[in-house]
C-alpha cells in the first residue's frame, strides 16, 4: 500500500465517528448533547470574541515559556547527570518516585508560594514537563556508546567538546522524542492548573462554561484545544523522524 492510501483508514474512522456523533445528537435532541454543527458555530462566535482570544493568547504565551524552559532545563541537567553513572544511580530513584506522583495535587503548594497568576501556572506546567524530559535525557546520555567515549578520552577532548561533539549528536534522537512528549505533558499541566484556578486561559474558559452549562461552547473549545495541540505535535513528529534518519546509530 503506498503512502497516499495509508491516509484512508484513519480518515474513514474519523468520518464514521463524526457521523455517529451527528446522528445520535440529532436523535437525542438534548440541550446537553449538541451536534458538531452547533459546536463549530459556537466556536466561530467564540473566536470573534476578543476576551476569549485574549485567553487563548495567555495560554499560548505561558505554554511557550514553560515548554521552552522545561526542554532546556531538562535536557541540560539530564545530560550532565547522565555522564556520571554513579550519581545517576543515586539520584534517579528519587526522580522516578517524584515523577509517579500525580503532580496536580501539588498545585496548591505552587499557589501558596507564587500566588494565583501566570507565575504559578507557568511553574506548574514547567514541573509537569521537566521531569520526563530530564529522565529521558539521563537514560539517553547513559546510553552513549562507550567506544565513542573512549575515543574522546584518547583524543584528550575537553569536557565541553565531549558534550558538543559526542554526547549531543548521540542523544539528539532521544531529545527529539523527549521534546514531543514534553509538549503534551506541559500542555496538560497548564490546562489542569488553569481549570483549578485561573482568571484567564483556555482551561479557565472550559470550566467557566461548565458552570454556565454551555455544552456546545465547551465542545467547540475542546475542538480548538485539540487543534492547537495537534499542529505542534505533528511538527515535532516530523522533526523527530528527520533527526532519527540523520543521527540514529543503526546497529
Amino acid at each position: 500500500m503506498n503512502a497516499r492510501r495509508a491516509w484512508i483508514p484513519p480518515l474513514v474512522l474519523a468520518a464514521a465517528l463524526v457521523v455517529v456523533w451527528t446522528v445520535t445528537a440529532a436523535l437525542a435532541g438534548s440541550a446537553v448533547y449538541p451536534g458538531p454543527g452547533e459546536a463549530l458555530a459556537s466556536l466561530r462566535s467564540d473566536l470573534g470574541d476578543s476576551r476569549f482570544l485574549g485567553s487563548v493568547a495567555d495560554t499560548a504565551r505561558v505554554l511557550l515559556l514553560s515548554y521552552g524552559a522545561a526542554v532546556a532545563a531538562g535536557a541540560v541537567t539530564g545530560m550532565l547527570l547522565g555522564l556520571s553513572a554513579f550519581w545517576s544511580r543515586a539520584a534517579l530513584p528519587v526522580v522516578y518516585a517524584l515523577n509517579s506522583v500525580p503532580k496536580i495535587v501539588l498545585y496548591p503548594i505552587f499557589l501558596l508560594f507564587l500566588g494565583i497568576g501566570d507565575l504559578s501556572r507557568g511553574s506548574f506546567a514547567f514541573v509537569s514537563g521537566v521531569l520526563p524530559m530530564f529522565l529521558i535525557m539521563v537514560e539517553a546520555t547513559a546510553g552513549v556508546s562507550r567506544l565513542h567515549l573512549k575515543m574522546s578520552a584518547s583524543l584528550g577532548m575537553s569536557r565541553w567538546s565531549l558534550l558538543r561533539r559526542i554526547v549531543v549528536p548521540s542523544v539528539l534522537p532521544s531529545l527529539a522524542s523527549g521534546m514531543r512528549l514534553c509538549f503534551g505533558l506541559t500542555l496538560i499541566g497548564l490546562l489542569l492548573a488553569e481549570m483549578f484556578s485561573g482568571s484567564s486561559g483556555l482551561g479557565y474558559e472550559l470550566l467557566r462554561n461548565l458552570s454556565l452549562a454551555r455544552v456546545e461552547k465547551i465542545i467547540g473549545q475542546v475542538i480548538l484545544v485539540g487543534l492547537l495541540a495537534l499542529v505542534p505535535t505533528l511538527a515535532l513528529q516530523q522533526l523527530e523522524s528527520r533527526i532519527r534518519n540523520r543521527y540514529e546509530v543503526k546497529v
Partner: protein
Amino acid sequence: MRRSSVVPSYVRPTPRRVAGLPSPLWTLVFVLVAVVAVEVYARSGAVSRLDLIPVSEMLSRAIELLGDRKFVVDSLLRSVLLICASFVASAVAGVAVAYAMARSRWIHRAVKPYVNVFYALPVFALYPVMVVMFGTGVVPIILLATLFSVVIVIANALVGFESTPAIATKLARSLEMSRSQQLRKILLPSALPDILAGLKLGLAYAIIAVLATEFILATTGLGQVVNRAYNNFDTIDMYAGIVFVSVFALLANLALGAALNAFDWRRR
C-alpha cells in the same frame, strides 16, 4: 593517586562508593537532606504557617487521617475503587484493541495515528463535557480515567503482539491452530512482558486521572480532600492530604510493579 589520573572520569569504571557511601545510601541522603531542609525552614519562622508546616506535622496528620472513618470510607476507599474500576476497564479494552489491531491491517492503519498523537492532546479538556452529560458522580471520572489509561496499554500491548517471532506464527499455522488457540498459546504469552509494562503505566495513568479529576471538580474522593483543605485555608490538612496521596501513588505503583514482575518470563 587516582586524582592525578589522565583518564577522564566518564570512561573510568563506575566507583562502588563515593566518600565511603554506596549509591543507595546517597539516595537516602538526598531524601533526608530535603526533608530536614523543609522541616528546619518551616520551624525557623521565616515562612508563615499558612504556607508551610514542618514535615513531622504533615506525617503525623496524614497518619491521623488513616484513623478517621469518614476519610477512609468517603475518600480513600472511593478513590481506590474508582482507580481499580478504570484500571481493569482499560486493561481489558486496551489488550482487546491491540489484539484487533494486530489481527487486521485495516484497523491497525485506522487506529495507529490516533494512538501516536493521543498523549499530546489534553484529554482532561473533555472532563467538563462529561460532567455536563453525566453529572458530578463516578461516571465521568471512570470514563475519563479509562480513556486516559487505555491508550498507553494499547500502545504497549501492540508492541508486544507485533514482536511475536515469525517462527512461532509459522509453527501455529503448520499445526493448524485455531484463532483462539493462537491467541492463548502463542500471542498472549509472547506479548506478556510488553503487556505487563503497559499495565504498570496504565495504573500510574489511572491514578493520575482519577486524582486530577477529583481535584478539579468532584464532591468527594482523595483529590477533593486536598482541594477542600486548600480552599478552607486548612494548611495542615492540605499538606497531610498531599503527603498521603503521594505515598499512596508510590506504594500502589511499586506493589503492582512487583506483582506483575512475578508473571514476567523475561525476568526469570
